[in-house]
């Protein structure tokens, strides 16, 4: 990951692997005008795991709305989708 990536939140997607997860999540983010700065995915013990660093600053929607849209998608696709401000990871993982 490059050091100059601009992002203010982290989206994580956990669930059983299936066709269309990335398309589904990125589609919703695009509709909300959220830029994806970095994306990575792995399959851990049959569990699909995707981490995206995103920038919500240009989105016209507030954080609650974004969170709600992702949650709805998660329910539809049977995935756990979270969006969290990056500060929580800074707090816990950096001194």
């Amino acid at each position, binding site marked *: *990951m490059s050091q100059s990536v601009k992002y203010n939140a982290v989206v994580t997607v956990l669930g059983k692997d299936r066709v269309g997860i990335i398309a589904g999540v990125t589609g919703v983010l695009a509709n909300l005008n959220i830029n994806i700065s970095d994306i990575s995915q792995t399959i851990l013990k049959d569990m699909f795991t995707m981490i995206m660093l995103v920038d919500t600053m240009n989105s016209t929607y507030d*954080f609650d709305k974004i*969170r709600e849209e992702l949650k709805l998608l998660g329910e539809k696709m049977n995935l756990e989708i979270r969006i*969290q401000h990056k500060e*929580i990871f800074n707090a816990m993982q950096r001194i």
Partner: protein
Amino acid sequence: MFENFEILETINMFRNQHLDVRTITMGINLLDCAAESAETACRRIYDKITKRAEHLVDTADQISREFGVPIIHKRISVTPISLVAGASDADNYACFAKTLDKASKTIGVNFIGGFSALVQKGFTAADLKIINSIPQALAETDQVCASINLASTKSGINMDAVALMGKIIKECAELTKDTNAYGCAKLVVFANAPEDNPFMAGAFTGVGEPECAINVGVSGPGVILAALKEVPGQPLDVVAETIKRTAFKVTRVGQLVAEQAAQRLNAPFGTIDLSLAPTPVVGDSIARILEEIGVDTCGAWGTTAALAMLNDAVKKGGTMASSHVGGLSGAFIPVSEDEGMIAAVESGTLSLEKLEAMTCVCSVGIDMVAIPGDSPATTISGIIADEMAVGVFNNKTTAVRIIPVPGKVAGDKVVYGGLWGEAPIMQVNPSGSVRLIERGGRIPAPIHSMRN
């Protein structure tokens, strides 16, 4: 920039290991609400609390959503009511408790603490009124918590108050016997009570506190347990280091949430309470941590040593993670609220005597312990006196929250539900302490309290 494993570790702590912020507690000064008429004082109290804490719940919920951090409780702590009500014409202070209850419900918090008095050296007239009002106040309200400080290292132990509280606890149990003496779960007695404690039932806002402050209590026994499962059989140095590292991360969550809450609520950040607070949920137990460290069952020999190390390592890791640490800051060992403690009592391994020993090295004390309903008031006072001595002579906070459940005997069990859990009725030493308690007076402050 983060590595994937770091992000997943954080997610996993919230997702599988029950990491949460246990409480955001807003401390509110009520000294300026005093009035000659109790009615006026109550109106001022209600207005002040509901105005100052109007957005507490919304703000906490918003922070929770944005950062993905569960925030379990939103609470209020106020100036000890004995100090506010003393100027009034009321003889019974239950009306003040009802006002607090109403304010608490209006703003949507789940508990309000501060139906309190500090009597370590003696009673004022108001102190006696509030203590005598406690049984009725707790029976007739839902969300009010009462606490009385009976002793301090500087002042010694007020044994008249210890004797009185034994009776008050019994009375409280009797008045709330329909709910298995639930009133007693909302009443705690202290030695060296902290003035900025965010946790119930003992939260109150001391007179040295500002007009308003945000105090946050973190939790995370499940996270510590999960981390220790990664180092089986390793020396205790490694165990201590692992706890420290994990406590650091847990506390940083609390610090972030506290800073955000303070800023958004326009109130100064007070302290982070570094306590490990269990819940009855499997995987969120202090007892199970001690068992992971190496005792077969909590209460076995070695339990006190393991707990001492746990408590110390949590403080060492947490202190560096927070700008201000306060409150109780240590591992809690409430029996009914900890699945592993309940199991240890039921297996016969954990006795009241061993619990007392454990309180020498961790925060709080004999907490959420249910005992037979026919235990004499003087025996309850004896338990309190011992616990006060542990606190006073070891320069630490200790407390007793004990529930003599009417009609129940050792081996029975009562269920309170939710975070209060379920309490096995514990055996109490049948030998009495009547003559000690009836002496009354004060146990002088220990020699090492004179540090000037």
